């Protein structure tokens, strides 16, 4: 089935590889060829087996059946990243750099150059400098990793891989945390590597990027190989369809306009808090209000301040007609205002706990009977949440860290909903989530709004904001530069406000 591909020489290939964890099969006889000088994208929904396949190809997992071939010869890859010595480098989504050390120290970590037992810093620095110059990024060997932006950290990882003479570079969602400009910079590096004959494999949920950079695309679904095609033959729609295995007719649910005279449930005037300056807006009952703008423009800060997570220095917040300040998250929750963080792993879920503990945590007082927690109430809530939010897990006792990103997000959504909120603030609800789950989440949000819950949707994904929101507030440098509605909600308008080319006079 892969004849056309096999005719080229593949550096590294998986030959009918299956992988099970315990009794649970994750990959079913998947074949995958990596060719030198080619960019190969691996796409699929969360839980499709992409990470497992990548880790198998890099030796972190051993295949249950099938084999891995390097230069055509069957090989047992050494575990724990020692495949780097064979030129196979896996860059994890969570970057693997020592934050407090310099770029040079990181690149040479574990194989420092030394003479007579003393580190040869000059030589190492020179090598790193020339590598960085080659790539043309503006990073110094002496920069501390902690001071670099995420994009630059990623560059350092790539340089590190190159310095180890990587022939195969496997990357897990390298662009998930990058801005558009950073992504472009990153793609330039990928193209350079490709010219040098390095084989690049990467996972991404951003199909437009896949289309733009990949030569070949492999689609996995539920651990099965679906297809491997040249990127030219695929359209964004066909990729999405094959990933999900069904028609994705409407990504966004139909928009349900709130009443023109619906009450203003929340009104904010002159809000002054960390990273925000003079923020004014209102939110109507049953409305979905988008918050757009660049990363760091203060969108999250506004709502952290409103929800009692940071100090407010000035401003007036009117909630259901009364002036209010929520001094704590608990006070905001009791009033029905909840914030769903964008940082699922660091601020959202207790990764070592199961679904039940995570689900009830925010609304825990609700589960108390006679001063004690009622575990039956908690179990019932979980059964309901699993059904309502379609949380799919193999094992009801699964720890949050072992769940896929999509299921984590659904669990987080369920957790927030346990407190019966009137206003839900959702921050980047679909970051790192596959198309199918994205669509589900959009439908949950729309359904909530239809029930009369007011939603604030903070998002960096333009289509999401445009497709979901009744009105969109655009922020720049801590201020709202404009609030768009109706036909004005389009990409070019939002970009103009976000980039500071345009600013509504009322906020000037």
């Amino acid at each position, binding site marked *: 089935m892969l004849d056309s591909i096999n005719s080229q020489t593949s550096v590294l290939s998986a030959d009918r590889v299956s992988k099970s964890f315990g009794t649970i099969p994750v990959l079913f006889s998947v074949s995958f060829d990596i060719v030198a000088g080619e960019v190969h994208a691996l796409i699929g929904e969360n839980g499709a087996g992409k990470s497992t396949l990548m880790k198998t190809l890099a030796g972190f997992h051993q295949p249950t059946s099938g084999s891995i071939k390097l230069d055509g010869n069957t090989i047992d890859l050494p575990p724990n990243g020692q495949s780097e010595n064979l030129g196979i480098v896996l860059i994890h989504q969570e970057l693997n750099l020592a934050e407090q050390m310099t770029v040079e120290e990181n690149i040479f970590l574990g194989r420092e150059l030394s003479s007579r037992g003393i580190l040869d810093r000059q030589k190492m620095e020179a090598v790193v400098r020339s590598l960085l110059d080659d790539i043309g990024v503006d990073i110094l060997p002496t920069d501390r990793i902690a001071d670099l932006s995420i994009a630059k950290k990623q560059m350092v990882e790539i340089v590190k891989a190159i310095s180890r003479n990587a022939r195969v570079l496997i990357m897990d969602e390298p662009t998930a945390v990058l801005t558009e400009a950073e992504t472009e910079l990153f793609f330039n590096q990928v193209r350079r590597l490709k010219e040098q004959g390095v084989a690049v494999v990467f996972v991404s949920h951003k199909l437009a990027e896949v289309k733009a950079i990949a030569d070949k695309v492999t689609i996995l679904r539920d651990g099965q190989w679906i297809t491997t095609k040249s990127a030219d033959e695929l359209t964004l729609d066909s990729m999405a369809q094959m990933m999900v295995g069904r028609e994705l007719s409407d990504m966004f649910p139909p928009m349900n306009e709130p009443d023109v005279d619906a009450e203003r449930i929340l009104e904010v005037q002159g809000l002054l808090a960390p990273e925000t300056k003079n923020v004014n807006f209102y939110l109507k009952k049953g409305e979905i209000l988008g918050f757009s703008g660049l990363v760091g423009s203060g969108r999250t800060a506004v709502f952290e301040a409103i929800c009692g997570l940071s100090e407010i220095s000035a401003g007036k917040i009117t909630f259901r007609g009364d002036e209010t300040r929520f001094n704590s998250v608990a006070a905001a929750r009791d009033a029905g205002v909840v914030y769903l963080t964008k*940082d699922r792993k660091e601020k959202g879920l*207790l990764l070592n706990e199961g679904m039940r503990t995570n689900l009830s945590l925010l609304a825990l007082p609700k589960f108390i009977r006679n001063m*004690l*927690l009622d575990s039956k109430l908690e179990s019932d809530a979980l059964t309901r949440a699993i059904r309502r939010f379609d949380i799919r897990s193999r094992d009801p006792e699964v720890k949050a860290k072992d769940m896929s990103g999509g299921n984590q997000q659904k669990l987080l959504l369920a957790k927030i909903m346990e407190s019966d909120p009137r206003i839900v603030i959702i921050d980047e609800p679909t970051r790192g989530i596959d198309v199918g789950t994205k669509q589900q989440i959009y439908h949950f949000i729309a359904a909530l709004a239809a029930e009369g819950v007011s939603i604030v949707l903070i998002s960096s994904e333009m289509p999401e904001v445009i497709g979901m929101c009744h009105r969109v507030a655009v922020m720049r440098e801590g201020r709202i530069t404009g609030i768009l509605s109706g036909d004005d909600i389009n990409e070019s308008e939002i970009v103009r406000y976000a980039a500071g080319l345009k600013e509504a006079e009322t906020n000037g």
Partner: protein
Amino acid sequence: MDDSLVKNTAQNRMMKFDIKTMGPAIALLLLCIIGYLLNPAFASEGNITNLLTRSAFIGIIAVGATFVITAGGIDLSVGSMAAVISGVMIIIMNNAMSTFGGGVTTVLIGCGSSIILGLGAGWINGFLTTKGKIEAFIVTLGTMGIYRSLVTYFADGGTLSLDFAIRGTYRPVYYDSFFGLPIPVWVFAIVSVLGWMLLNRTAFGRYCMAIGSNEAVAKYSAVNVDRIKTLTYVIQGLCVSLATIIYVPRLGSASASTGVMWELEAIAAVIIGGTVLKGGYGRIGGTILGALILTTIGNILNFTDLISNYLNGTMQGLIIIIAVWLQRADFRSSNKTT
């Protein structure tokens, strides 16, 4: 579907129960068998009662330490705190003698002041770590030094002794039995049950675990992190004061050497019991077993000539290291198979 879900849950609980809970219990059982084989007198009623009574001090303190450690903190000051509370209690009771005589009233005044001191000392530790934003290790290292030097100062470098009249009234609290069990054992049992309920069945316990797992998640989930953390230290202080109340009638005195190393024994009991040192997971049942294991080692060494009694610390140290090592190994293998 719902049925199978519930069944699965129950099965998984059983398995977890096996691996994590049974470890310390098996260790204790083994120790008892060894003790019995070395000297059958080990299993005599008198010795078992004695063993339980001795475990009570460390056990009660360790129950408090379980809360502190589960919530991601540490309290190094408990030994010194016990010493200073003992000392102040004795001073207060001796002074109360002139007004209230050597009767129950004086003893109650002493106990009351002990509880107030314990709560206060715990609150100070909690306040400095949360509002003062100083690491718990440093705060309690500081208070440990302060309390230890205070008791030395109060005793003027010597020993504070309880007046003989009061001693007579107070003595039964340590030496008397109730339904066949010494009073300290009852206190230990009650503290354990209450502690277990508090950690496993209340929102407070859940919040402790949440904070220990990830403070940011707790904060974003409407948990008042500072208050809960402070409360863990207050509970620790209360436990120390309870331990002190049953300890003082034993010797009727306090000195600079009272409660030395108790903090480490308490922490050791918690860790042997399976609570994770960096927080997020706590087990009161394990802590109790841990305290019993530590006391049993000392007790066995007293019974046999095989190993010198002076090597008690060595044996305890080895047990701590082995216990933690076994828990690690266990985690690794279970990760591999799933």
